[in-house]
């Protein structure tokens, strides 16, 4: 068959101007790369989970065994749970911003308070 550059084609840009959402496109670029790295860490973690489960079951660990592994109901739930918790951890700062938005009364500035106490 025709020789193709799989990696270049996989990375192909969709036709149409790419929208950037952060004020500085450099931030968008770093952010996008960070998310891709986070993805690969999650992939590695799921692979490790598979290796652990194979070992625990006393089964041989090989590339083929890993690719053939299908988590049972409970294992699949635990693995999805891990993804959910992991995303919560890496998005912590955003969740804190959201919490601040929800509870504006809980955002007193310590600096202001320090100045106020010092003046009293």
């Amino acid at each position, binding site marked *: 068959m025709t020789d193709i550059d799989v990696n270049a084609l996989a990375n192909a840009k969709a036709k149409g101007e790419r929208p950037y959402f952060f004020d500085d496109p450099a931030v968008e670029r770093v952010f996008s790369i960070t998310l891709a790295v986070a993805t690969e860490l999650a992939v590695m973690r799921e692979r490790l989970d598979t290796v652990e489960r194979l070992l625990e079951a006393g089964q041989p660990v090989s590339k083929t065994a890993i*690719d053939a592994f299908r988590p049972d109901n409970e294992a699949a739930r635990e693995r999805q749970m891990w993804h959910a918790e992991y995303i919560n951890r890496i998005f912590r700062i955003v969740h804190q911003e959201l919490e601040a*938005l929800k509870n504006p009364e809980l955002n007193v500035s310590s600096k202001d308070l320090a100045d106020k106490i010092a003046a009293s």
Partner: protein
Amino acid sequence: MSSVLPPTYDRVGRHGLSPDVTHDETARFNFLTNLNVHIGQKIFPGTKLAFESRVAPAFDKAHGRALRDQCEVRDAMKCDPLYQFWAATRRSTMEMRQQSGRHVVLRQLGKMSAKAAALNAGKNTLVLDPRVTPPDYLAQVDNHWMPGSYYSEATPGDVLSGAAYEAGLFVTTAGSMSARGDGAGRALVRYLAEKFPDFKPRRILDLGAGVGVNTLPIVQAFPDAEVVAVDAAAPTLRYAHARSQAMGYGNVQFIQASADDLPFPANSFDWIQTTMFWHETSVATVRAGLKKIHEMLRPGGLTLHIEQPNFAADTPLWDRFTRDWDAWFNNEPFWRKLHMMNVFDEMAAAGFGRDRLFDGATEADIEPGMYQDWASTLSRHKPELKRADDAANDGARKGEFWYLFGAWK
């Protein structure tokens, strides 16, 4: 327990033309699915709060008046940090999903295309027409950021577009289209069985059928009918036909044609269906297509459409913004105009009697036994549709929620 857990990717329905998916590719799809769920469930609601609590008030203060339309909302939201985060994450997640889906298919494209070619060889149920070129609106931007759209090839005669589309569908929709991506087709046949149990179409047309995921439940439900699936994109049809053959559906014909120029005579179908089709076309195609549908239907025939609901007079400004979002930022340019069109007026103009029109809502029918029992499938459009009176509100079958309109000829 606050986390919504989607089903895992290994539960996707497989068939004879499915790509091999390695452990790590599956894990990547799992992460991206969870990321989609997270930004949809946890971050997106926050953007509405940001709008109400700081963006809209700041606009009022600066301009001495309230925001007037969704374009003003869009421009005002542009500077909000939470919104920026949500939108940038959504964009990146979509790009990663396209990348991953394409990579899975590209690395085995030769094998998959050969398999498809063998399944398609000598079958008169696949009719490609090289004179059909991609409609202008498809050729300018790739819908939902899908590189190459439905009609491009990496190698002559390949199945890249259709296969990559199917591989990523589960991820973007977090499984809410059911395990074989056919939740809409399943919902349709259930809707017909419930609403019009005596309707027994003999000849059926599915227009803009894509990879045919939603065509096959129709074929299955009406085994004696002649089913024709039409699409403008040859590579997608090549995949669709081979897929249906691999799944054992012989009695469906896939024909390459454009909705603007359909090769069927008047009075030749009992049922003409479109599923999530019009929103990726144009005003001219909607108008010409509906007129032609009216002509092609036999008297007493039915046409049904699953589509974005148009805006009602009381659709809130925020919902207008979020629903037009895809037109501005997800390469779905026609959504904005479609939201403003009145489908009943369009159907009437195409020749359907006003008293023969109806609409409603339907929910993706999730195939039992495919997903884990703890898995949830989300219903993204539900809030927009709560006014629709005959919603299929069976709590057990939670999936994507759709607007549906139709007419009898």
